[in-house]
Structure formats: C-alpha cells, structure tokens
C-alpha cells in the first residue's frame, strides 16, 4: 500500500489543480462506492469533500454537541425554508454513512414498481437490482441484527401483541460492540461506513482526496463539464480561506446528495430546459412519539435501530394516503431530550425519566401521491442551498396517523404514558385517551417536532428528458460527461432508509461508467477485467 494522497483544504497555502480520469463531488454513499469501483478499474479518481476526514476511533469523546458540529451539515439541523423541518445530513468524509444508524434496506418492490409504472423506469426491477444489493451486502457486511436492546425489543413486543408486521433490521457492521453511538461516528471502526471502507480502498487504488473544500461550481464548455471548481474552507468548514481548487477530468460525477447536488448544478448554470432541477425533493418526514416505560430502557445504549414495523407503509396502496414505517430512535441525552419541548419543572421531571424513555419514529413516505410534490431547492444570495418544503394536508394526515400508530404500539408494549413530540400535546395514560387526544390534536409548525434523515430527489432519473434530469444510469440528459450518482436521482422517496438503495444504484451506474470508459481505453479495460476476477 502506497501513501494515500489526501489534500486538506484549510492547510492549503496555494491554489491546487489536480488532473485525473474521473472527478467525484462527495464521499458519501454514492460518491465513495463509485470511487472505489472506478479506482479499482484503474482510473485516476479525484474526490472532493466539504467535510473533514475525522477518525472517530482516534477521538472517541462520544459527546453529542461537538460531534454534531463537526460531522453534520449545519450541526444536524439544516432547516427548511420556513424552519418547520430539520434536515440531517453528514458533512464529513463518508457523508451520512459515517453518522447513520446503520439501517440498510433493499429498495421496496412497491417503490420500484411505482417507478416503472409512473416514471417510466423499466430497467430497475427488483431482479435487476438484486445482484447489486447482494454485492453491497457482502462488501459492507449487511446482515439482520439479532440481539436488539430493550428499546427495540419493546417495539417488537408492541407489534407482536397487535399482530403487526415487523422484522429485524439489516445493519452494515462488522464486529459491532453494540455500544449505541453510531450517530457520533463509530468509535470502534465497526460500522462499515464509507470513511472506513470504500474511501480508503479508493485511496489505496490511486485516488486523490481533497477535504474541507466546497465544490462551488462546475466549469462548462458547450455540452461538457471541464472542471470542478472548489473553495478551500477554514478549520470550521465555514469561511473560504481564499485558496481555490480545480479538479480536471474527462468525466465528472456529482454525489453531493439531495439538496446539494441539484444546488451545485443550479449554481453552475447546467442546462435545465424543463425546470426540473431541485424540484421534487422528498424528505420522508420523521415524527416522534415518546413513552415512559416501567422498565429501565437505557435507550442510549445498544444498536440504535434493529427492529422495524412495516404494517403501515403501503396500507392504503402505493398512491394512497401517506404511509409510514416505524422504528425506534435510541440516542444520547441531547438527541433524546431535544424531542421534548417542556419548560421548568415539567422539563426537569421528564428529563429525570430518561432511562425509562422509549422513543418511536415514523418515516412518512412522500412523492407517490399527486398531492405530494415534495419541496424545491432554492439558492440564497451567497449561492448556498435551502429547501422550500411546505407541509400540506397530505403530510399532516401522515403525521396524525403515525402518531396514533406509535402510541398504540407503545401502550401495547406496556407504556405508562405516551407523549407525541408536539409541544401542544398532552400526556396520555392509555390508548383510548391517546386515540381521542391525538385525533383532536392541532398539528402545526413548529409545535410538531419534525426532521428528516432521508432527503432524496431533486435530480430525478428517468428515460424522458422532459420529466427527468438524468437517465436511469445517472447520466445527465444534456451534458455529455456529467453523471449524478446519489440519492438525488430517486423520483420519489423510498419507504425505507435509503443508504443501501444509494450504494447499489451507484455501484451499478459506476460499473457501467467504468465499462464505458474502458471501451475507449484498452489499459483500463485490462485493469477492469483483472479486478473482476
């Protein structure tokens, strides 16, 4: 293994120009998997990442606030335009994979069928994607987790008593210590996140990585991207240092995730003849239900998510009312208690019950119904991106339905009281009281705590350039050498955590890109064949 080539933005004392075969913006699920495949095919890959390369094994403070500040975009609370929803995205090498809770689901078949029927995507049937899911599941050691902590076991108990469909969650871990601090970056290096797997592998195959550099724009010439232009950032990742970085390559892959991939294309003036960029951005909005259990739950320890309830995801048909899946949210004090907007004595009384807290989360799928158009990415004056996502009746219906289902499940699991994470909601002592209380609850922002760890869409894929930004291989419809390999290409939300869907689609599309380049480059083709053996 030769020395890995890493350039750190805030230490650059002069402008930097790198040349290679493929430039990739972003090191998350899409960018890193693509980098690994392309580098292993013998291509010189250039990666640029806005965050830092933070080795969470070397610095396991396991304190929430400094880690949110350093590993997440906007401290984990990137607000939508009206402030109603906090969007959680990683901003570190490995992107959101570094800080996610490891839940790794295949794209649900109803979602893929909907894409075929409504969005004309016929190349992504479950059987088409199966080999790619298998490849990633092997690469990242994705297996169902069989030893749930009590937080998750209570979810399973409630579901079993109600006869609701539930199952173990597959997780991308190897020798997991079951600590429960996934959201702060794994302190053991057990999570098979991109910073631990695909990024180092790409670096060992000759890729170069530039950290702490924000991709500002793509330089265009006719129908080609000629370079990625970035600005080096200071140690906070906030202010430009004045140094600039150019990545020049005949192929450019954008993998800066939903919101920020479309924003990069918008800032760059990439052709958008049908005004689609940044539109149809989905959040799979998350809402929360808190319960106090007689048991000592200790929700801050153990694999955060290992059981899910699939009873309501498609309950009213794919294009019907907002469906949702349900999991638990097990986390440390700040994340757990930030869901409770109490004051004074009531805040103190609640906080003191933290070891008995059982928190459920629903992820309400969007984008499948005509009344669910999602949000739109806007650019601020300084070029940064903000998502305008107006919450409508379709969303609120999903919020109320999922509040009801979560409360019913928590009482079935033995809860003493249930408290929807809504500042105007009361404490319910039993299911009948909760049913009428939640039924009458006034749902409005910002009283209802809403966030999203699953921003998706905004560079939708499809075969028709009038309704999509990229084709089903992620290739831009108007630009000849530009591709988008990340969660922004999904035409709807998914109904599950998106990480495995992004890995698998990026693996498929990056492999196709490698083949395409190899067809013109005999040296690459040989390398590619060698690596595939």
């Amino acid at each position: 293994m030769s020395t890995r080539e890493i350039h750190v933005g805030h230490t650059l004392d002069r402008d930097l120009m790198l040349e290679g075969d493929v430039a990739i913006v972003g090191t998350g699920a899409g960018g890193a998997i693509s980098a690994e495949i392309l580098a292993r095919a013998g291509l010189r890959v250039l990666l640029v990442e806005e965050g830092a390369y933070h080795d969470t094994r070397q610095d396991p403070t396991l304190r929430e606030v400094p880690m949110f500040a350093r590993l997440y975009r906007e401290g984990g609370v990137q607000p939508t335009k009206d402030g109603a929803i906090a969007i959680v995205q990683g901003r570190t090498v490995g992107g959101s994979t570094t800080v996610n809770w490891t839940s790794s689901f295949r794209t649900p078949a109803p979602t893929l069928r909907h894409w075929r029927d409504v969005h004309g995507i016929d190349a992504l049937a479950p059987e088409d994607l199966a080999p790619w899911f298998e490849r990633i599941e092997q690469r990242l050691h994705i297996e169902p987790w069989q030893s749930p902590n009590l937080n998750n076991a209570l979810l399973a108990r409630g579901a079993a008593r109600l006869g609701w469909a539930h199952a173990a969650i597959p997780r991308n871990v190897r020798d997991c210590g079951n600590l429960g601090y996934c959201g702060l970056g794994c302190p053991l290096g057990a999570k098979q996140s991109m910073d631990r797997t695909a990024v180092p592998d790409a670096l060992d195959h000759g890729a170069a990585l530039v950290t702490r550099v924000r991709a500002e724009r793509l330089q265009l010439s006719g129908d080609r991207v000629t370079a990625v232009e970035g600005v080096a950032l200071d140690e906070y990742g906030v202010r430009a240092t004045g140094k600039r970085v150019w990545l020049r390559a005949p192929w450019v892959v954008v993998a800066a995730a939903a919101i920020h991939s479309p924003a990069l294309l918008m800032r760059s003036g990439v052709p958008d003849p049908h005004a689609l960029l940044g539109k149809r951005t989905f959040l799979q909005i998350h809402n929360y239900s808190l319960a106090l259990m007689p048991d000592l739950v200790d929700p801050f320890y153990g694999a955060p998510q290992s059981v899910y309830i699939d009873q309501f995801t498609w309950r009213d048909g794919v294009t019907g009312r907002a469906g949702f899946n349900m999991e638990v949210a097990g986390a440390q004090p700040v994340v757990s208690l930030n869901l409770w907007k109490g004051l004074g004595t009531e805040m103190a009384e609640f906080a003191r019950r933290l070891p008995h807290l059982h928190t459920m989360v629903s992820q309400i799928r969007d984008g499948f119904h005509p009344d669910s158009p999602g949000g739109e990415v806007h650019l601020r004056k300084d070029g940064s991106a903000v998502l305008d996502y107006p919450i409508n009746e379709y969303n609120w219906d999903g919020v109320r339905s999922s509040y009801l289902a979560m409360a019913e499940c928590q009482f079935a699991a033995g809860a003493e009281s249930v408290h929807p994470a809504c500042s105007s909601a009361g404490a319910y002592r039993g299911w009948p009281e909760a049913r009428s209380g939640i039924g009458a609850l006034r749902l409005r922002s910002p009283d209802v705590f809403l966030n999203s760890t699953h921003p998706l869409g905004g560079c939708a894929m499809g075969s028709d350039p009038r309704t999509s930004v990229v084709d089903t291989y992620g290739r831009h419809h108007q630009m000849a050498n530009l591709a988008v390999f990340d969660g922004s290409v999904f035409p709807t939300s998914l109904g599950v955590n998106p990480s495995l869907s992004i890995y698998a689609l990026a693996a498929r599309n990056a492999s196709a890109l490698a083949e395409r380049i190899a067809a013109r480059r005999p040296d690459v083709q040989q390398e590619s064949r060698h690596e595939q053996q």
Partner: protein
Amino acid sequence: MLLSRRGLLQAGLLGSAAVWAGGLLGCVARRDSPSPGATQRAALSPPAEEILRAVIPVVLGPLLAATDPAREQALDAGLASLDDYLAHLSLPLQQEARNVFDTLDLLPLRVLLLGTRQHWHEAPPETIEAFLRSARDSRFSLLRRSYVFLQSMAVLAWFDQPSAWHEIGYPGPPLGPYAGSGRHA
C-alpha cells in the same frame, strides 16, 4: 378576547424587527465589545450570551439551581460548547441566529415581550418564564419559533455536559475520556 392587542403588536413588531434587525442594529448602540471579564466567543454575540444566561436556567428549572457554583461552571461549559457548535454553522444560519437574539434584545421588544424595560439579565425568572410560556402557546408562529429556538439552545447547552448527566440518569459513554461507571451492554 382570543386575539389580544398586545399579542398582535408582539408578533407584528417581532416580525418587522426580525426583518430590519440587521440594518437597524447598525444604527443603534450596540454592545460589540464584550464587557470586562467576558469570554471571547467565536459565534455567540453579547446579547445572545446575556439572553441565554437568563433563559437556560428557566428552561431547565430544578435541573440547574442557579446559586450552585458547580452548576454555574457547568453553565459556562455549556455556553462554550454551544458557541463552538454555532461557530460550525454556515454564515447564513449564524446570521439568522444572531438576528433572533439581537431582535429579542431591542428595547421595544423587551417591553412588549417581558413587559419591562429591564435587560434580560435583570429580569426576574418568573418574568422570563411567563414570556416563554406565552411564546410557546402563542397563536403567532414567529413567537412559537422563538420559543422552540431558545428551548433547543438550552437543551444543546446543558444535556451534553457531564455534570448534567447524574441528575438525568445517564451514566455516560462506555469508553473515552468521559466514560461513566456504566450499566451499558
């Protein structure tokens, strides 16, 4: 009367103040230079620090007894942690946060929201609690947003402090410099 005149005034003034705060505050007396003995902050402005020092003990109630010197140290540590957190936000978000604090610190706003000409650090806790409760339950989303913002700042500042953990039954992380005695798996 559902819609009180004072409520309308509060929302209207807070709204226009929020919009104009940036420009307006350039013209009025600003406390740009920290008072003697104050800590130099990366992101927290003097009004922000003053308001948070007044609000956090009210949000946390019995969890933070203001007279206890150890708790005072924890509050200092919490504000330092919060300052570091805010300093990692993008400039538009840092500016937005600063505008909220600057607006809440304007004299006409203090008179309307707290019902007093006193500065935040002079206002009694009951006055601040009454303001927070009315903001939480206000019909105006801007006031409710102010409540959620201030409450969240308190949560961020406080519950990550090791000295806060015993009171809430969190034994601390299983490893690293802040490892607790632990009952983890």
